[in-house]
């Protein structure tokens, strides 16, 4: 599955479109403690979080994550948006909770 399929199937909003929508997504990771995400997220995962600080862009790049989903209708802060555009990190959004969207992503990967 690529990022575009995932965004379409989960009806995610595209908050920052610059980046590679054709990139393969191989799993997901959910977390708001960035130190934990840095330690445990696997590359090419889609990252589900409520953190909107600009450091999320650096963490996504560092871990080579497929993209970021912001939950609960949260919007990236302006510096976050600028950095994500510069670095090509796609940011998606959903009005759903982290629990609900994590379940939906897990469902796409065959874990129910």
């Amino acid at each position, binding site marked *: 599955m690529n990022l575009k399929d995932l965004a379409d199937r989960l009806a995610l909003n595209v908050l920052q479109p610059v980046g590679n929508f054709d990139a393969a997504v191989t799993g997901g990771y959910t977390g*708001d*403690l*960035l*130190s*934990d*995400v*840095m330690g445990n997220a696997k590359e090419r995962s889609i990252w589900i979080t409520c*953190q*909107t*600080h*600009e*450091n999320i862009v*650096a*963490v996504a790049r560092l871990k080579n994550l497929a993209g970021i989903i912001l939950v609960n209708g949260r919007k990236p*802060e302006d510096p976050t948006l600028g950095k994500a555009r510069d670095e090509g990190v796609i940011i998606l959004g959903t009005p759903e909770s982290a629990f609900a969207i994590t379940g939906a992503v897990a469902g796409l990967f065959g874990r129910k």
Partner: protein
Amino acid sequence: MKTFRADLHIHTCLSPCADILMSPRSIAAAARRKDLDVVGICDHNSAENAAAVAEAAGRLGIRALPGLEVTSREEVHILALFDELESALSLQEHVYAALPGENNEEIFGLQVVASADDEVLGTSGRFLAGATVLSLADVIGAVHDLRGLAVASHVDREGFGIIGQLGFIPADLPLDALEISRRLTFQEGRAAFGRTRPLITGSDAHFLEEIGLAATCFQLEAATVREIGLALRGLGERLVLS
């Protein structure tokens, strides 16, 4: 130039997570027992007990600096320390306007406002344990606008520490210092965190017996935030000694 022993991170009975016995007079007495010259009064998102502790501590010859421990929207704790009570209260006003919710005493604890003579003046109904909607940059900017010092609290702790929450410290964030918790020695803290920014340590006392368990020694002309700021930057022979 004199040496001042400072524990710049002390809570009072106003913080819901702090012991009810953390009253102004008891804090002042404990600070004297621990040979502290300076204490920083930093309740969660509030400075409502700062004046009372300053008065109680002043009677014992101890300088109590008014401050707050602000919770940013990223759930990072920032110590804000000031020379003037008015500045701390201005920041408090800014924080209160950005702090949603009400306290639930059964879950979070009592938030007691006290006098310098340890009388209970009332309780705060605000959700002081909560997070503000202010970004880290907003908080630090507001502190600096009021000529205060902004210090990232307990950077070695995962919960509410800037590195735990944000993975690393943004290079352009104008923090005046990092605080290590009392779990680390100053030497350990310096090795782990002290390469790029000035370092202090503080007890983060929530109980009387924790006051002074960690303290920073400064070489200063006087016990003021302005002087501590000079020491953090190593200016004018002001120094952070240990």
